[in-house]
């Protein structure tokens, strides 16, 4: 029957168009820098916060930090969860120079493993990264150059106030989920202090992030507010007091300014850290840090859990 044939043909065309339209609407999401552990400057004490304890003389520090995070970024469409970035192991090498109240530093991040799975969420398809030392034997991701300055207080005062700025120089491919592919900047107000055996630090700042992928779920939405605080107990280990251990939590996070503290655009993470450090005013000191933690609010790059280890050689040189 002609009418039946026409109906069949029309139905086929409509179906085909619908499939095509769906295929066209499905867009490939590009990657972005999923790492939310914005390490403090080499020699700055905490993992994320800055102790602002520059001693005045010319000093310096070198730091090697190695961390692993599980399920850094996973998306869900309500029925299933896709771990786009399931494993992320990164080494970070940094060097800093301190003088007077200033600290100038540079950090280079080396991905050891970044793995994940691909999948489709909504109208977006995501490709999981596949980075390892064999395929990427010399990869460095975004380099970071920063400066911190203490404005109020002394190296060991009850309250110290300072400011810091960082520039991220893009490097690498977005598909590796280790870079936004754009320059980024950070401006932070820093505070810290020591009172007896109690030590604390905190930050509030802006992460100037040009990348805005609002249309793709769980991706950056432009600039972010950074926040965080740390509190620890500082206890002498050696009878002479030349070595101390600091134990305490660090809580930090970020939220997109466009969706201020929105549930899908806010990351919150907590670490319990311990560090063993030399406390000498002169000469080369050693600091060994270990932390473990989890994403408190696991959106936007906060992992299921994370472990971090760091070793630093530093020289404060009091003036």
């Amino acid at each position, binding site marked *: 029957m002609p009418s039946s044939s026409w109906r069949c043909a029309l139905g086929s065309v409509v179906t085909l168009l619908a499939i095509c339209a769906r295929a066209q609407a499905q867009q490939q999401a590009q990657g972005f820098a999923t790492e939310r552990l914005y390490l403090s400057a080499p020699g700055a004490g905490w993992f994320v916060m800055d102790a602002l304890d520059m001693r005045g003389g*010319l000093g*310096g520090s*070198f730091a090697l930090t190695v961390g692993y995070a599980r399920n850094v970024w996973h998306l869900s469409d309500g029925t299933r969860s896709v771990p786009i970035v399931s494993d992320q192991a990164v080494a970070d*090498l940094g*060097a800093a120079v301190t003088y007077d109240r200033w600290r100038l530093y*540079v950090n*280079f991040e*080396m991905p050891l493993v970044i793995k994940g799975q691909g999948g489709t969420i909504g109208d977006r398809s995501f490709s999981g990264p596949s980075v390892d*030392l*064999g*395929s*990427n*034997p*010399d*990869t*460095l991701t975004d*380099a970071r150059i920063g400066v911190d300055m203490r404005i109020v207080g002394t190296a060991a005062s009850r309250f110290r106030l300072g400011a810091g700025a960082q520039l991220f*120089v893009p*490097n*690498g491919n977005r598909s590796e989920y280790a870079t936004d592919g754009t320059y980024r900047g950070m401006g932070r107000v820093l505070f810290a202090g020591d009172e007896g055996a109690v030590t604390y630090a905190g930050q509030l700042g802006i992460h100037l992030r040009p990348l805005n992928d609002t249309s793709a779920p769980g991706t950056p939405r432009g600039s972010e507010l950074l926040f965080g605080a740390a509190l620890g107990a500082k206890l002498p280990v050696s009878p002479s007091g030349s070595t101390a251990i600091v134990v305490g939590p660090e809580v930090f996070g970020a939220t997109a300014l466009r969706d201020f503290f929105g549930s899908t655009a806010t990351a919150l993470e907590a670490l319990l850290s311990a560090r063993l450090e030399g406390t000498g005013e002169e000469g*080369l000191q050693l600091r060994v840090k270990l932390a473990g933690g989890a994403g408190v609010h696991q959106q936007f790059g906060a992992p299921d859990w994370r472990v971090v280890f760091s070793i630093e*050689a530093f020289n404060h040189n009091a003036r």
Partner: protein
Amino acid sequence: MINVPPNVRCSRASRGARMFVRLLCLGAATQVLLVSESARAQAAPPAGHEEEAFDFMNLLSHHGLHNLDDESWNAYGQFTYISSWKLAFQAPYTNANGSINSLVPDAERSFTGTFTLFFGLRLWPGAEAYFVPEVISERGLSQIRGLGGSIQNFELQKTGSETPQLYRARLFLRQTIGFGGERVVKTSNPMQLGTTVDRRRLVLTAGNYSLLDIFDRNNVTGDPRQTFFDMAFMTHSSWDFAADARGYSWGAAAELYWDDWVLRLGRMAPPQHPNVLAVDFRLWKYYGDTLEIEHDHVLFGQPGAVRILGYRNNEVIGRFDEAIAAYQSDPNNNNAGSCTGFNYGSGNFAAPDLCWVRKLNQKLGIGINIEQFVAKNIGVFFRGMYSDGKTEVDAFDPADRSLSLGAVGKGTLWQRPFDVAGIGLGMSWISKIHAEYLGMGGIDGFVGDGGLRQGPEGVFEVFYSVNLLNAIWLAGDYEFIWNPGFNRDRGPVNIIGAKVHAEF
């Protein structure tokens, strides 16, 4: 051991006044590099710095803030921009029958720009850690195709692009164990902390570095960023040393220094496929082994050295005879255009290809490296190497036999003590079976014109480097290359080069 000859520097006078200008120049140059996307970073080690140099460490030392003689840390940097202009040349055929590796006969410009930082840290007595991040931007002539052992710019990398790329060039640990003898001063330099060591000592190195950091050093040719432009003078052209596509890799080496003798032994990880960046870490299965014996001497009051180097690579590479046999047994299927495994993309369906025969094979070679100073600041050098020539290039260049010789001198005679001038000749050959393979239209890494009338590829180079301020050099260079790609049918090629080099 021979002391590294002094490098190019200015007097200390007016250092302070010039420093600002230098920093401005350096900053501007770096900006140009990063913004204009104009720039292989050299796998060879950098030159030593002198007391007269402007650099961060000397600056600290002069202010009493750093002890250069007994360093716990140091930090240096360099910037190098090289531009090469290739003039048009004659070639009766280019990329014949779908081949892809010819040097194109049209005029072309190539460049590289590199910016490098060198960090060193003493970890415990005798232990040093080094970290070297580097940025490169580059454009090769004909995409670095068509030249065998005389690629015109040693900085070119096989994986580079015009977009600046930041990568980790080196990250390694060095442990020195003293066995006594006289004390030898090691001056503060990039990848060398200032210290004093025993003349008899064992030095162990492990990590990510270049074989050229340890083996086949030559104090006359020194740091390529200070001397010759052409890769033929950086090391033996026919030494297919294990490395990734940038010239670095992972491995370990031991050096035994015993008075005037040095014995070196090392194992390095090869690339996963020939000439790619990915590295195979199964060092027990795939590797490049190197053995070198060095003797240092004094001849007519001037220092010199002789080094014998042998290497054996155990890698997944193809033999030319097997590629030819595979093609002849089934030309319709086993040809270059029909490759299904790793290949370089030749479209020649009437040529053999190594893609059909890659498996675990060995490559062997032995070479000699001689340096001799004839006056305080003038030296001559000679390198010669013979490799078996049975297999393809895995990491460096396609030459199977090579020699290079020349002279490098500083401008003391004409009152420009920090200028550097040099003249050199480099020659490279391929084996008979290699030539037969290329003649049938096959390609090997970077050469293969689709046809071949075999001849030695040669380069004659002359350069002059003018020192401006304490830490900046401007160099002009001319290279004359004949039989490019070992092919008598093509060339000769004239290349004019210029270089800006800064150290800080």
